[in-house]
């Protein structure tokens, strides 16, 4: 089934730095979503970007979508220790309303 694949698998940075993680997929999509998961708050929806959109912002988060390359990126600016979590992309493709998740990127932000 269609699912996104995140890259890198793991990322370790210092507080204040920017973090970029990528998601690639194989077929045409309706939309792509980014989620964050940590032990404290479970799985939380961050941003949804539709197939006809190229960029969206939410606070310190910036998501881009390049449908020609079948890829998306999530940028977290001025990272904080509290951003430490796993980040997943999930794609909705074809006639399915179900987002299919990748394996995630594990982000560690050192204070």
């Amino acid at each position, binding site marked *: 089934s269609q699912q996104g694949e995140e890259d890198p698998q793991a990322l370790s940075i210092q507080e204040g730095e920017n973090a970029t993680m990528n998601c690639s997929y194989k077929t045409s999509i309706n939309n792509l979503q980014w989620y964050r998961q940590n032990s404290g708050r479970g799985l939380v*929806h961050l941003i949804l970007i539709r197939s006809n959109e190229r960029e969206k912002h939410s606070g310190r988060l910036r998501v881009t979508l390049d449908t020609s390359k079948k890829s998306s990126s999530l940028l977290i600016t001025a990272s904080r220790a509290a951003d430490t979590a796993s980040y997943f992309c999930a794609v909705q493709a074809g006639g399915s309303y179900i987002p299919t998740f990748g394996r995630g990127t594990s982000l560690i932000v050192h204070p």
Partner: protein
Amino acid sequence: EAGVAQSPRYKIIEKRQSVAFWCNPISGHATLYWYQQILGQGPKLLIQFQNNGVVDDSQLPKDRFSAERLKGVDSTLKIQPAKLEDSAVYLCASSLRGTLYNEQFFGPGTRLTVL
């Protein structure tokens, strides 16, 4: 607004035993989902309900897993008998409608360990 509630939070059982998980979605959310998340992987959908009807259960191992959503509100997911490979976190999520662009809200999950 109260979030998605799940119980228990943790469960340890031996293989071949049975186990049940409970989920209470956000009030007014018509769509309810159960996901299985194995360590190191992303969540995998097991079943989707729209009100009290099943929309998608194509990835539910029906020989051992069952789920119901009576009265279109709470839901239970049961495993009988459990296998070692069922060790995972079971996540419940709900959304206002099960359509495109609808945000899913996830519960804290139930961590199942099968010994």
